[in-house]
């Protein structure tokens, strides 16, 4: 029996890989970093992974895996602090936790909410890991049969979910995904090297936009800017209160709910691309629906904490399924994880079928690292809760510049290029606008991440199917309509139907008010403009390289269609319609104490100053001015904080042997490191 002869030795092997002091140390390091990243709003798995990415080159594979898995696994544990204590989701996976967690904190039950959340997170994480173990055993022989059509179906399955992510207007979500895919096709075409939406006169774009920059720009930058505009102390000083044991008892009383939500988390995680941004909402919806007494929800019912928290850790286990088994990223952070794996050691690890076949021990090592990281994360969160809670009392204006600094550093890791910063700013601006007009950002990122596999596999599948059909109709049908493809097709259709039913529970971006036609219309027209340009640019690719044109032309045409339908709808519907969602017109964003443009111009100024003075000098000025003018600190404290920031940057850069992006000044004068 395959299972006994292969899996058991691999499982034992996996333990011997993990249970080494150095590996456990790396795991602890990863967990600690993951906890830190999760606590700060705006930073999530993508930001964390992109920071450790440069350390992965040539690192012993088991160390690198421990570091990365440790980080990814615990972000959904520690992001609960921000959700419960501040009422701000610490990452996209804990949005639903806010609904009942924050009211509990206001009632002085913060400790109880947190411990219920940690217990649920731990349980969910372990369920996820066990599921993954089991799933790999069962799925391995089937997965090894996967060919291009099957892999294409898996990618398409992920894409089909964007309609559900889209929230209130499905067409906007579809167009957002389309724009994400088109942004991913910028640069040299994969088959013939024909340039798409780029020019050799502007080499930056010819290389294409990097996932790290797009991920940080589309999610992190808009969150930071939004929080900065509120500028309240992130939480009014709340005491944690007592009730740690009560929280654990709450979880135990709802253990079956927790189990069901963990399973939901695993299943949603398995769907490529869907990931964290919806799983908590689906679990919350399930929690509310399955309870008779619903009066307490939204006012501090502990079940509203247990449900989402059980699901969001479990989804990491599920999310590793498409990543490890097919090499198709389950989410944005998993896409970075795949890239990082190839840097480890001498590049012997490849995700996908090859890993299942040749590196089953590493596959299981990843699973068990995930489980261990969850345990470590929970223990650390409980042990350090007092200290971590204190972080949330700091004004966001004092944290934001540091977070922005770290994101910028992560963004230019790949090229030490000023253009990386400019791209981050540009994509960040797009993200801010998408957030404002309620265009689904998760849909955009899914499009970006899945564009590559979809284009590749459809190209391969299409050519091979052509060859098979020339051999005979039956041979062709055997290839494209294999039992696995058909099964996946059924799963996709069922998921879309089930998903659409769930869609009303999902408020991935919160409630958004409507009002005023002009601004949303202008944004739609801009998007239509970009899509039309993409269509024109790729449709004019010369015939010998038509393979490079097929995918972008198809996607651009479909997106353009969505755009034109939206345009027609905008003409017909009143301005109170969800179509005209605009955060600036109502709801919490309207009460911001700072306007959008002044906040944004701070970052634009950093970009401009970097182009003139180089990054470090520009950062000095930016931090100092920000602390003094925007945060209103005294000179002494501003100087100290600036010093800390610069020292941290220099430390990181020294560690990595990196220079900072130079500006015009460095063009004329030779300056000593780190000013170079």
């Amino acid at each position: 029996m395959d299972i006994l002869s292969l899996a058991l030795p691999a499982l034992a092997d996996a333990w011997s890989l993990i249970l080494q002091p150095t590996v456990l140390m790396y795991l602890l390091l990863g967990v600690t970093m993951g906890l830190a990243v999760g606590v700060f709003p705006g930073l999530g798995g993508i930001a964390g992974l992109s920071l450790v990415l440069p350390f992965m080159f040539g690192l012993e594979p088991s160390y690198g895996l421990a570091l990365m898995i440790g980080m990814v696994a615990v972000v959904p544990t520690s992001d609960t602090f921000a959700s419960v204590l501040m009422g701000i989701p610490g990452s996209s996976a804990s949005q639903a936790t806010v609904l009942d967690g924050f009211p509990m904190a206001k009632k002085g039950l913060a400790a109880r909410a947190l411990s219920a959340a940690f217990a649920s997170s731990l349980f969910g994480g372990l369920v996820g890991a066990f599921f993954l173990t089991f799933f790999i055993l069962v799925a391995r022989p089937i997965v090894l049969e996967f060919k291009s059509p099957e892999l294409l179906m898996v990618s398409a399955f992920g894409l089909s979910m964007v309609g559900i992510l889209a929230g209130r207007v499905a067409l906007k979500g579809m167009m957002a995904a389309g724009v994400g895919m088109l942004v991913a096709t910028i640069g040299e075409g994969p088959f013939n090297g024909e340039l798409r939406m780029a020019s050799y006169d502007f080499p930056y774009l010819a290389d294409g936009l990097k996932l790290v920059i797009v991920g940080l720009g589309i999610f992190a930058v808009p969150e930071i800017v939004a929080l900065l505009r509120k500028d309240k102390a992130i939480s009014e000083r709340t005491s944690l209160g007592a009730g740690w044991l009560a929280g654990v008892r709450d979880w135990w009383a709802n253990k079956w709910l927790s189990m069901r939500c963990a399973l939901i988390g695993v299943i949603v995680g398995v769907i490529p691309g869907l990931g964290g941004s919806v799983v908590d909402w689906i679990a919350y919806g399930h929690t509310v629906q399955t309870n008779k007494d619903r009066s307490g929800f939204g006012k501090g019912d502990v079940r509203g904490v247990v449900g989402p928290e059980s699901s969001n850790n479990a989804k990491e286990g599920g999310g590793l399924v498409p990543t490890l088994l097919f090499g198709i990223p389950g989410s944005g952070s998993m896409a970075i994880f795949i890239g990082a794996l190839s840097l480890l050691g001498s590049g012997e690890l490849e995700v996908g079928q090859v890993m299942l076949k040749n590196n089953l021990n590493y596959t299981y090592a990843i699973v068990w690292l995930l489980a261990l990281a969850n345990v470590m994360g929970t223990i650390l969160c409980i042990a350090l809760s007092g200290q971590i809670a204190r972080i949330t009392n700091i004004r966001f204006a004092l944290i934001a510049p540091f977070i922005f600094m770290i994101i910028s550093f992560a963004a230019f890791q790949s090229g030490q290029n000023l253009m990386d910063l400019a791209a981050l700013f540009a994509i960040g601006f797009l993200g801010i606008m998408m957030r404002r007009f309620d265009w689904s950002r998760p849909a955009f990122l899914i499009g970006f991440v899945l564009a590559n596999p979809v284009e590749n596999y459809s190209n391969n599948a299409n050519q091979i199917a052509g060859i098979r059909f020339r051999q005979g109709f039956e041979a062709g049908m055997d290839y494209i309509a294999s039992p696995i493809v058909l099964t996946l097709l059924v799963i996709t259709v069922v998921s879309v139907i089930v998903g659409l039913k769930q869609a009303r529970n999902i408020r991935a971006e919160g409630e958004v008010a409507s009002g005023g036609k002009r601004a949303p219309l202008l944004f739609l027209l801009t998007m239509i403009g970009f899509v039309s340009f993409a269509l024109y640019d790729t449709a004019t690719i010369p015939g010998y390289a038509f393979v490079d044109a097929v995918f972008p032309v198809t996607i651009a045409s479909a997106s353009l269609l969505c755009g034109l339908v939206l345009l027609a709808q905008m003409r017909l519907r009143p301005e109170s319609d969800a179509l005209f969602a605009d955060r600036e017109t109502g709801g919490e964003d309207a009460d911001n104490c700072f306007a959008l443009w002044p906040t944004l111009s701070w970052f634009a100024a950093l970009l401009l100053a970097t182009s003139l003075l180089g990054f470090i000098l520009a950062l000095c000025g930016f931090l100092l001015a920000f602390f003094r003018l925007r945060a209103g600190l005294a000179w002494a404290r501003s100087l100290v904080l600036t010093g800390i920031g610069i020292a941290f940057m220099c430390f990181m850069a020294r560690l990595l042997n990196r220079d900072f992006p130079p500006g015009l000044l460095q063009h004329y004068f030779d300056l000593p490191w780190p000013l170079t």
Partner: protein
Amino acid sequence: MKKLTHLVAGASVAFGLTVAASLPAAAVDFSGKTIEWTIPFSETGGSAKWANFFAPLLSENLPGKPTVVVKFMPGAGSTKGANWFQKQKHTDGTVMFGSSGSTQFPYLLGDPRVRYEYGDWNPVMASGTGGVAYLNAEDGAKFDGTANNLKGKTFVYGNQGATRLDLIPALAWKMLGMDVEHVMGVKGRGDGRKMFESGEATVDYQTSSAFLKNVTPLVEEGKAVPMMTWGALGANGDIVRDPTFPDIPTFKEVCDATDGCETSGPAWDAWKAFFIAGFPSQKIAFLPAGTPQDVMDAYTKAFAAIAARSDFAEISAKRLGKYPMYVGADSKSALAGAITVSDSAKDYVTGWLQAEFGVSLK
């Protein structure tokens, strides 16, 4: 050409020693620096194995022991990476590039997407390799040292691009009278192998290092059957058995034994000319245009020191196969051999590409 061809692994080691001894001590110091060696293919192909083999050795032997990392920039069958490298200027000697036969062929054929010029680059090390074509188990059972039993059956091959190194197997199979359908746009030979493993492709080829690492297990499991190697160049310019795979017949032998396949005439001459350009000095490490002599010397010395290791023949045979390695001035003449092909061979291949793949290079 002759000078190149009689060099084999053992001789190159001896040569490396003399180079190492004759060089002045370089003042170049890479302490604390990171050298980024860009490979224009994905992580899974032969070039990746080649660079990953040399990277740690290079790190030990360069002054200041810098970290040497291998970066991958796949796309357009290596044209993307090579076009990128063309734009790099010398800064501090930390940028290195590794080209392969797939980079050389489009350049030789005047592919319009090529925006790089080999003449601008500075070679510091070149090494040869071989290639092995292999069949799926079912058709492999029918293979008897000739392609006679393989005719009339349609094979599927994952092709990186008509003008890439893949034209060597494509032309060889064509000459053998095999009916091979090409799936174009595969991103590297590693991806081609994955297609073979999943059963979508039924015939494939890998360069030696990738064959040793990834296909040998398949052969042992009975899932793949080696068909032929491209061979190696003998002292008199003849094609002889590949020293890494002495038990596998060469394409020349298979062609000789197969009805209708000839080892003379324009097709054979063109195949051989491109084989010589593509394999015996296939993988070349370059520093960008404008690199000063002292940096070049530091690299030459480091590679010579690697070649001079007492265990070099042994460790390189295991991971790269038994092929020559050229350092310093010899890598320059290796490069000359790799980018020179007669006009008649070029014309034949251009015409065949147009007829078979509809690729117009004019």
